[in-house]
């Protein structure tokens, strides 16, 4: 397909106009005549308000920023006058110019040391106004084109389908601007226009011309309706989002795909006027200079050149012209983002995009995909890509434990399968139709969730076959044959989107945060090891050479400098970017101050390189000293440790001695105890003896008592007998006396 050349040309012309405006405005700023600007702006806004009342309703569905810009555009006349005023002003302060030459250079100074995105945003902020002004301008122009129908069919289509996508574009633009997940905020705007897309979809089978016209009509009618019912439909924006989503899941119609993708990625919001041309101009400029372009760029350039014929070889669109576009696109991207530069796989993305849209739009789409959706994926160490592999493996283990076990058994790492899928976003891995359908969803969602869902869906679909493989080779061959096989892409997308709803961006982010430290640690260790390997001469000899021969050390630092080359060249591009910017700013009248600036830039580049070299050398030296120190500290530690060990040994010996003493004491105590026991036993015996004696005596006592009692009884008996004898005696005596009386007195 030939590219819509005319359209491109018109874009170029507009772009250059836009840039002049930008230059003038920027100059206004640098001349620090801000008062005048304020006046001009307030004037413009006033007129805007007036114009708004006239044209407001026509464009209400468009984003605020664009509306204002359009109105600015509508009061073109006033702007022109103010522009001439500005030019006059410039002439007026021409004498001050030389002084102000310093101002930009200091700006360069500060910007040169900051990150690339900063300088990009600087550019963006300066060109923002004319850019959006231009976009509405071009839109109006396109309407004119529509009416006239004089341009080629391509351009017509480009113009006609554009308004349909306005709504989606607005939605996605804000996402591009704000970063992520602001979709819902803008859904009301997108909702209004969905019917048109739906209608546009239905007549697909018809001939293209008819189709185009229908789209056009549909668009117009629906837009008018929508404008009327704008407010009414604002509440119902959530259902519309779902509908759009399901439509995207169903596949974007192929004729609209390029446009829709641009809308999804937010090309309009990303686009910075002249930026692409500047990148290309820089390229050709350095091409002429030859020697100046730094090592990394030369490397990328060679690589791109090598990969051009290896990108979709044999595709009819990639003829010489197509390859030239592809080359320009990739070179521009490498300049745009040196932290990525050129990485294989990007050639496929760029090639695919070029088949669907004009070159510059493809550039901005690529920028959106790689800088936002796949941020950190294609950089030097591919950290995010590695992280995603770990995340995917965890998800696999969670979802398909049996399959993963089988792969483990075969000795196949999950990453061997999913790595190529993710890195190529399935390009060349699956049949084309499926790839496009996956990209539809991926670009719509604006994150990498679809990658995971699709990969999981593929595992679900092919898992049963995989489990039966007996060999790592068979498993991989099975999966590699997917690209050539035919299968139902709708089923794949459906399985991916419906079957794995639990895989959300938030979940993935959590998992990424969990796995990232491990990847970073490995990368860090590797870089460290790499460095150690590089200066593997051994510490002693290095210290020696450091003391005795500084020259050799300097030589040693060279490889390290080569590593740093990348940084330097990045800085160089940044500074040369700024260089470009300044050139365009001063294009009209400041020709004489230009060489001066150029010189300063060159000088600063040299200075920067020198400083970086110095820094590198210093770092290296510091590292050496550090290793030496560490070594010394280790030595020291060893001595201390051995001293401590000795001490501890002494203590142990002491303790053992004490233990022995204690044991002796214990033995002595035992002896004493035994003696005591014996004594006790003896006394006890004695006691027992005495007790026995006592018993015997007690027995004797009782015996005696008995005897005594017997004696007493016999005594008592004797006494009785005595008493009796006495009484008998008495009686006898009485008798005798009686008798005697009787005898004595016989009368």
């Amino acid at each position, binding site marked *: 397909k030939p590219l819509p050349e005319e359209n491109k040309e018109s874009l170029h012309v507009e772009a250059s106009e836009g840039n002049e405006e930008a230059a003038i405005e920027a100059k206004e700023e640098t001349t620090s005549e801000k008062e005048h600007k304020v006046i001009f702006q307030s004037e413009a806004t006033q007129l805007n308000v007036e114009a708004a009342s006239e044209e407001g309703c026509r464009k209400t569905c468009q984003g605020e920023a664009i509306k204002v810009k359009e109105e600015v555009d509508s009061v073109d006349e006033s702007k022109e006058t103010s522009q001439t005023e500005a030019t006059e002003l410039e002439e007026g302060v021409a004498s001050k110019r030389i002084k102000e030459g310093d101002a930009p250079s200091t700006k360069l100074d500060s910007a040169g040391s900051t990150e690339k995105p900063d300088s990009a945003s600087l550019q963006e902020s300066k060109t923002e106004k004319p850019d959006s002004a231009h976009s509405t301008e071009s839109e109006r122009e396109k309407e004119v084109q529509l009416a006239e129908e004089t341009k080629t069919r391509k351009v017509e289509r480009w113009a006609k389908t554009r308004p349909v996508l306005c709504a989606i574009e607005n939605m996605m633009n804000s996402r591009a601007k704000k970063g992520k997940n602001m979709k819902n905020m803008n859904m009301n705007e997108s909702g209004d226009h969905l019917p048109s897309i739906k209608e546009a979809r239905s007549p697909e089978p018809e001939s293209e011309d008819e189709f185009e016209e229908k789209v056009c009509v549909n668009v117009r009618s629906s837009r008018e309706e929508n404008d009327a019912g704008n407010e009414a439909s604002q509440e119902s924006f959530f259902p519309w989002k779902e509908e759009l989503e399901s439509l995207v899941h169903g596949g974007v119609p192929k004729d609209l795909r390029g446009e829709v993708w641009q809308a999804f990625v937010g090309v309009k919001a990303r686009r910075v006027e002249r930026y692409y041309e500047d990148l290309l101009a820089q390229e050709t400029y350095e091409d002429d200079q030859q020697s100046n372009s730094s090592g990394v760029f030369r490397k990328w350039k060679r690589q791109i050149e090598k990969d051009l014929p290896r990108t979709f070889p044999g595709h009819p669109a990639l003829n010489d012209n197509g390859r030239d576009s592809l080359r320009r696109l990739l070179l521009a991207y490498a300049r745009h983002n040196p932290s990525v530069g050129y990485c294989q796989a990007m050639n496929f993305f760029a090639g695919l995009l070029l088949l669907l849209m004009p070159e510059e739009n493809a550039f901005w789409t690529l920028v959106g995909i790689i800088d936002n959706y796949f941020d950190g994926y294609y950089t030097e160490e591919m950290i995010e890509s590695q992280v995603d592999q770990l995340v995917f493996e965890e998800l696999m283990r969670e979802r398909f434990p049996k399959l993963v076990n089988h792969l483990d058994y075969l000795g196949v790492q999950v990453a061997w399968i999913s790595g190529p899928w993710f890195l190529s976003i399935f390009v060349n891995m699956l049949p084309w139709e499926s790839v496009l359908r996956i990209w539809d969803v991926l670009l719509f969602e604006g994150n990498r969730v679809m990658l995971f869902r699709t990969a999981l869906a593929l595992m679900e679909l092919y898992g049963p076959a995989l489990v039966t493989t007996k060999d790592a080779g068979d498993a991989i*061959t099975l999966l590699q044959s997917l690209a050539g096989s035919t299968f139902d892409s709708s089923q794949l997308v459906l399985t991916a989107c419906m079957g794995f709803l639990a895989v959300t961006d938030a979940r993935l982010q959590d998992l990424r945060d969990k796995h990232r430290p491990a990847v970073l640690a490995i990368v860090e260790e590797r870089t460290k090891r790499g460095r150690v390997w590089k200066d593997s001469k051994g510490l002693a000899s290095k210290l020696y050479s450091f003391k005795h021969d500084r020259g050799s050390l300097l030589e040693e630092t060279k490889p390290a400098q080569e590593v740093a080359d990348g940084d330097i060249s990045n800085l160089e591009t940044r500074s040369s970017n700024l260089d470009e910017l300044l050139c365009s700013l001063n294009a009209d009248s400041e020709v004489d101050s230009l060489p001066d600036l150029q010189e300063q830039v060159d000088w600063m580049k040299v200075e920067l390189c020198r400083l970086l070299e110095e820094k590198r050398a210093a770092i290296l030296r510091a590292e050496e000293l550090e290793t030496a120190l560490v070594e010394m500290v280790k030595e020291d530690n060893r001595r201390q440790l051995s001293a401590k060990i000795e001490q501890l040994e002494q203590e142990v010996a002491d303790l053992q001695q004490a233990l022995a003493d204690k044991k002796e004491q214990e033995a002595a105590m035992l002896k004493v105890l035994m003696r005591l026991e014996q004594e006790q036993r003896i006394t006890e015996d004695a006691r027992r003896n005495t007790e026995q004696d006592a018993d015997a005596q007690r027995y004797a006592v009782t015996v005696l008592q008995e005897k005594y009692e017997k004696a007493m009884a016999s005594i008592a008996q004797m006494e009785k007998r005595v008493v009796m004898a006495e009484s008998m005696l008495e009686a006898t005596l009485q008798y005798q006396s009686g008798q005697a009386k009787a005898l004595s007195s016989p009368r």
Partner: protein
Amino acid sequence: MSYAYLFKYIIIGDTGVGKSCLLLQFTDKRFQPVHDLTIGVEFGARMITIDNKPIKLQIWDTAGQESFRSITRSYYRGAAGALLVYDITRRETFNHLASWLEDARQHANANMTIMLIGNKCDLAHRRAVTTEEGEQFAKDHGLIFMEASAKTAQNVEEAFIKTAATIYKKIQDGVFDVSNESYGIKVGYGGIPGPSGGRDGSSSQGGGCCN
């Protein structure tokens, strides 16, 4: 398919030196002048016969661009042989050999057999690296060396088979513990060759005789 041994190979080297073409020439016996570049890794397999024993080669063909090294490093593990490829018409691919070797030494097992291949030797008129330099480098680093051409198929079979023969000899010498699969060698089940002596050294048929 039965085999006495299975060897895992890995093909490494700068991008565009013809790694995928070598693999394609070896597995499919054809040459594709332009084909899609490799993202991540590609895979191929073929049976060969050494010392009358069927041996299966499992070959992993990696992406060459520098950025992909962090990904391709995981493939070194468990590789018995490596084909380190450079392009004789591009000096820088030869100059990068040391860093590839360093990667291999760090991430593969120490007994991995490395074959150095100077590819594209059919383009002798554009030669930028002499055969002697290649030989010297191989000698210095203990590698086997061959110049080959994926286009004309010159020395392609030989390179793969010679590597396999070296590994085989190491097994015979008892360098490997073949029961330990981390060396990239797997002992097959149908490995005992049949009595028929009709195989030549480079036949590619599977070991069909043993079933």
